[in-house]
Each structure stands twice: as structure tokens, then as C-alpha cells.
């Protein structure tokens, strides 16, 4: 029986920070092709700030909701930009989805994951196919939920989510950007992976590794 507590969630954010830091240059390069080349910096700053903020929490006295809200606030204030409000909203919605729970069962983790993806979509108002991080997050959340509903373990479900995120990010290469900075490029955005979708795969991969 899966039981994820606050300490596990902190380890998950630490894992994400490490993964993003290692991926920073690639994300900046992807962003340079169709944007302003700072996506890796923003993501690195954001998850670095989350790691630092969570390090000062008394985990034994903190519920998952409070930890996720701390993550949201520290990410937002360190970053601003587009990724700030998007990920901050993801964490706040995730926090709301698990409110009142001291530990999370696998169904709670799936609900958290779905709430994060929905939060990103609601804040950025992007649809599937518009070449944004939504193209990785939404299919990932859906695939994980479907897998879990069909009786798969949390680990298997998150693995299914990660695969869907990878496919979604790959598919952004064939999309013309309709939201965000690259949307002014028209067809010149074709052929390049969206950096926000690329970093979503990194984040989701670290979540799977840590929680699965």
C-alpha cells in the first residue's frame, strides 16, 4: 500500500531540482531556437528556490498541502516569467486536491498529478496542440489516471504518464505555436520542441523516479 508523506514530497522536489539543474543548458538552447533562451534559467531558479524553502520546513509538523503551498509561493517569487504562475498554480491546485490528508495513498497522488496539470491549463489557457507545456502535462495526467483506474500500481501509472509526456513533448515539434512568446513566429516554430513541454518531461520524470 502506497503511502506518500510530506518527507517523500520534499524528496520529490529535491529530485526535480537536481534533474532540472542537469537539464538547464539544453532547456535554454531549446528556448533560444524559438524564444528568449531563458527557460532553463527560470526553471533552475524556481526549483532551486523550492528546494531551499522546503529545507527550512519542520516536516514532522507540515502536511502535504502546506508543503505544496510553500513550493508554490517560493517558485513564483523567485521566477515570475511564465513558468512562475504556471507551476505555482500547479502546486496550489495540487495542495487543494490533497487538503486535510497527512499521507497520500496512490489515488491521492494521481489526483494531485491531475490537479497540477489542470492548474497549468487553467492559468495559461492553452489547449492541446498549441505547442506549450500543456501538450506534455495533460496527456501525462490523463494516461496516469487511466492506468491507475485499470488497476496499475502507482509506479506503473506514473511510468505511463511519463511516456505520454514524452510523446506529447515530441509532438510539439510538429506544432505551430499558438500561445506564449513563440506564437509570433508562425511556421518558423515548426520542427522545434517546445521548451516548456521539454521541461515538463524532466519534471514528470523526476516525480516518477521519486514517487514510483
Amino acid at each position, binding site marked *: 500500500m502506497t503511502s506518500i508523506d510530506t518527507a517523500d514530497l520534499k524528496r520529490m522536489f529535491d529530485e526535480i531540482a537536481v534533474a532540472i539543474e542537469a537539464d538547464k543548458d539544453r532547456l535554454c538552447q531549446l528556448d533560444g531556437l524559438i524564444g528568449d533562451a*531563458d527557460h532553463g534559467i527560470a526553471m533552475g531558479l524556481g526549483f532551486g528556490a523550492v528546494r531551499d524553502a522546503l529545507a527550512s520546513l519542520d516536516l514532522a509538523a507540515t502536511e502535504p498541502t502546506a508543503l505544496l503551498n510553500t513550493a508554490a509561493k517560493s517558485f*513564483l517569487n523567485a521566477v515570475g516569467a511564465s513558468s512562475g504562475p504556471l507551476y505555482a498554480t500547479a502546486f496550489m491546485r495540487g495542495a487543494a486536491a490533497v487538503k486535510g490528508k497527512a499521507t497520500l495513498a496512490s489515488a491521492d497522488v494521481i489526483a494531485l498529478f491531475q490537479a497540477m496539470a489542470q492548474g497549468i491549463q487553467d*492559468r495559461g489557457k492553452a489547449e492541446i496542440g498549441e505547442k506549450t507545456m500543456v501538450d506534455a502535462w495533460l496527456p501525462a495526467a490523463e494516461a496516469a489516471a487511466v492506468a491507475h483506474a485499470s488497476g496499475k500500481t502507482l509506479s506503473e501509472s506514473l511510468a505511463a504518464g511519463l511516456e505520454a509526456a514524452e510523446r506529447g513533448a515530441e509532438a510539439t515539434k510538429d506544432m505551430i505555436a499558438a500561445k506564449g512568446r513563440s506564437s509570433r513566429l508562425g511556421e518558423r516554430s515548426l520542427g522545434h520542441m517546445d521548451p516548456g513541454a521539454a521541461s515538463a518531461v524532466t519534471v514528470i520524470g523526476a516525480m516518477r523516479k521519486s514517487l514510483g
Partner: protein
Amino acid sequence: MQTKKIVNDGNRTVDEMLEGILAAHPRHLKSAAGSPRSIIARDGPRQGKVGLVIGGGSGHEPTFLGFVGKGLADAAAIGNVFASPPPDPILECAKAASGGAGVLFMYGNYAGDVMNFDMAAEMAAMDDIEARTVLTTDDVASAPRDQRQNRRGVAGNFFIFKAAGAACDRMLSFDQCERIARKANDHTFTMGVALSPCSLPQTRRPNFEIGPDEMEIGMGIHGEPGIARGKLKTADEITDEMLDKILDEMAPAHGDKVAVLVNSLGSTPLMELYIMNRRVKRRLDDIGVSIHATWVGNYCTSLEMAGASVTLMHLDAELQTMLDHPCDCAMFRAG
């Protein structure tokens, strides 16, 4: 290869710059208590006046904070390099700028800025401050004419903020200030060209590649690719290409008046800007459009990018009055 920059720590550039700016302009600027990324005019906000809060990413100096001062913006929220500020410093700016008559949020139309400023507006509403937003969308190269609302805000910010700031300083109503701000945006058209890239202080890597004999027409002020890349042309040809597009949209009549801004994106020198301005003057003379005022220099930069932009504001009596209204900012004075 890394680019050369005079910095200490790439991650501290914005805060160290702000420290230097406050040291240079103590008569004009201060930061909000407890919010160093909220830069406030010492002599701007006052009771009964509509507040004007501008803001956006760093790296465009003197935009945004150079235009904070009496007669122009009351406060500017400062983000990381090329990144929108988060809601908190924007909210602190709104509180400082509020004189009980409403606060205008004005900034370039970028997805990140919109999300952060909208969150700040929601937070301001909880403090009983009504914030209204007027996005700047002057970059004609960034979306077709029928999608003006999707365009980026670039150097034309200068004219648009100036007109709005004057309306606020003249104690006009919230509705009037908002109307004038929107009109100023509708009347302002910018087109840019980039010759060489800039590099972020944290990466020190050129943020795009461009051949030694190439230019990019329509490039954004964050190095976003433009609409077309071509061989580098002469100053007159480049200026003509920009003006053709601007004038086609503006469609001024014989005898109309405009204001002109020839702006460096960072490293293009005044010499080249004035060569472009020579052509602007000749072209406008040819079609009988008179120039009410001209500004030439660094007004909205993109770090050390080489390149320039031309902005025209199509004036009517009201906008002309607003442009002529005195202002006294850290990096800009008029009247």
C-alpha cells in the same frame, strides 16, 4: 565561447543594478519598504491621482524603471532578465502608486507578464485597489494587422507610457486615463531590426545565431526571432523597409503630425541611429507628414543586442498635449 560582460555574479545582476540605480538617482527613486524589486517615484503618487504602474523583465533599461518619476509612471515592478516580475512586487507598486482613484497597469503584451500582473490585480482588489490593465502592442512585425491584440509591446512603450503618465498627472479620471492609454497604444507603431545577438548574464551565450552579413527584420526585444532574415542592407534601405510597414498601417494624411523615436537595441551607436533618422525625416517630408518631436537614443534596449527600432506615434491634439506635458524621471525629462 562566452560573451564578455562587466558583471560580478550572473545571478545577482538585477539586484546589483538596482542598487546602483538607487545610488545614482536618490532624488527620483526609492524602493518600496521590504520589496527591493518595486521601484517607486519619490514625487509621483498622490491623493486623488490615478496611479500608473509599469513593469516587466530587466535588460531593457532605461525601460521600465527609467520612466518612473513625476509626470510619468509612479512605480515599476522589476523582473529577472527578460522575465516578468512575480505578483508580489507588482502588488507593492500598486499600493505605493494608489491615490484612491484607481491604478493603471501598463506593460508589454507577453504571456508571462499578463499572468503575473493579472494575479497582482486580483490581490490588489482584495486591498480595495482597482487595477485596470492596458497592454502595449506596438510591434507591427509580431502579428498581422487584424490581430493587433496579439502583438508584442516594444520601444513604443515609451510614447504610450508617456501619454498615459501625463493623463494621470493632469488628474484626469480613471476612465479618461484608461481611454488615453488605449488610444496612445492604438496610435503607436514600431518596427525593429537586429544585427547581432545579446546574451543573458547567467549564460553568457549569444541567444541566437546570425551570419556576419545578415540582419533579422522584426526581431523582438528578447531576441525572439523576427519575421524574415536577409542580407544586411544600407541604412536607407533598412529604414525604408520599416517605414513602409509602419506607414502602411498608420496611413497618415498629408499635414498630419507624428512623434518619432529611433531607438538602439543596445550596442548600435547614436551615429547609426541619426543616419536612420535622416531617412525618416526625408520620407515623412516626402509625404507631407510633419514631425512634432523626435527622440533618438537608448530607450528600450535588449542588453547588448545590435540593431535598432523606429517608432512613430500618430498624433492628434490630445496625444500631442500628453507628449508635451512635463515629466521628471530618473532617466528621462520633458517640458
